[in-house]
């Protein structure tokens, strides 16, 4: 039996991302808030596709819906779709150089943003125009940093001999 990799880095980083999603920001920056949860989820779906997948995405999306008062299932659906696509194409995405990887992340974020845009439209929320694109841009720009941080976390988790965690 190969050493079993613990799940704590994924769960901890998802929790932190969830907190960052509701962290109070100044009014100006609020519409530019990067989709932390989506980014972290993309990373883990790509790196640990056998552990983190659609189910995790669903529950973290549900938690986000409850936390920020949106329609129950809205973020859950968007995140599940992202997780599904990532775990479908992780073999291709994972070996991309950073630039192409960022482009894929951009595509995934765009898809997820469109899903919530459509849902908001059906639910009767007013359209907010271009500000929907802001989180996609900041999210893509933030991706290399998220990835670096998560890589380090994963390295620690996968190479730790003692099972302290």
């Amino acid at each position, binding site marked *: 039996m190969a050493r079993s990799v613990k799940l704590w880095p994924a769960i901890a980083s998802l929790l932190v991302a969830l907190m960052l999603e509701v962290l109070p920001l100044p009014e100006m920056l609020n519409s530019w808030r990067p989709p932390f949860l989506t980014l972290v989820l993309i990373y883990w779906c790509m790196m640990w596709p*056998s552990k983190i997948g659609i189910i995790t995405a669903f529950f973290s999306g549900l938690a986000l819906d*409850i936390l*920020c*008062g949106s329609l129950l299932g809205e973020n859950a*659906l968007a995140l599940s779709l992202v997780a599904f696509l990532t*775990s479908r194409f992780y073999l291709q995405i994972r070996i991309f150089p950073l630039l192409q990887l960022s482009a894929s992340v951009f595509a995934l974020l765009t898809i997820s943003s469109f899903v919530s845009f459509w849902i908001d439209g059906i639910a009767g929320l*007013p359209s907010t125009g271009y500000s929907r694109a802001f989180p996609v841009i900041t999210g893509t720009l933030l991706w290399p940093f998220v990835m670096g941080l998560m890589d380090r976390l994963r390295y620690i988790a996968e190479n730790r001999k003692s099972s302290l965690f």
Partner: protein
Amino acid sequence: MARSTTEHDPGLFRGSSAGLRFALIAVLCVTLMVLDQENKHLVEIRKGLSFIVQPIVYVVSAPSSASDWLFDTLSSREALQEENARLQEQQLIMSGLLQTYSALKAENNRLRALLDSTEKLSDKVLIAEIVAIDMTPFRQSVLINKGSFDGVQVGEALIDAQGVVGQVTRDRQVSAEALLITDADHAIPIELLRNRLRSIAVGTGEIDNLSLPFLPRNADIIEGDLLISSGLGDTFPAGYPVAIVSSVRSNPGQAFLEINAKPIALLNRIREVLVVKTQKPLAGLTPAADTAKPPTTTAEADE
């Protein structure tokens, strides 16, 4: 499940099952959304789930609470004395004003009795604080730190020291979500203080702007008019200041005036709010309550 992901990945042959799982979850999500849209089928489920995520709320708002606490603890004696003196002075002025107010109120109730109208009930309030977390970016909503355990109910109005803030839309156990009056989905029945002209102020989605889309071009409204809540619709108590008219534009091509108003409450700066628990008069005993229901634009004195 705990397998290392180094060489062979089981995910490669899992395509169809992942697709199936996604389809099921998508159906589940859509069902949840459809049920949640009406805001009544999933109320209990939402409450239960919000109890689970409450620790996250505490953690996220902890820095802000801690800085408040630090500020309180570390403020100097002089500052506290100064604040104390200022508050005492304010208290004196307020209680002075309140004396005349209670006399006026008694007089008003006597007059209402003469008119065979029901006695006006005073409102009970509950002090709540706004929790420092950001809700969804496309809505104007806030979280307050009092919930159903404290007696907060859906539909209760929120005011601050200046004016109307919003209303409670969802109660959790120890917190409640509230929609601000400037949310694009929100509308509040108002009347002009000057001539009791009634209308509805609709939120625009901008934090400092309300619009009054239902006033005809010959309506008597000018810049600087004070809008107060009219109490129609039974959600907001009557007589609280809501907004000041900031611009009135008459467009010859349109039947209605284009009116903008600026909310009086400092919606993006408030920390403390009052939850107003309106005491509703008993249903059978109020002849005036029925006639007050349909919103008409003519000013009739039934309050």
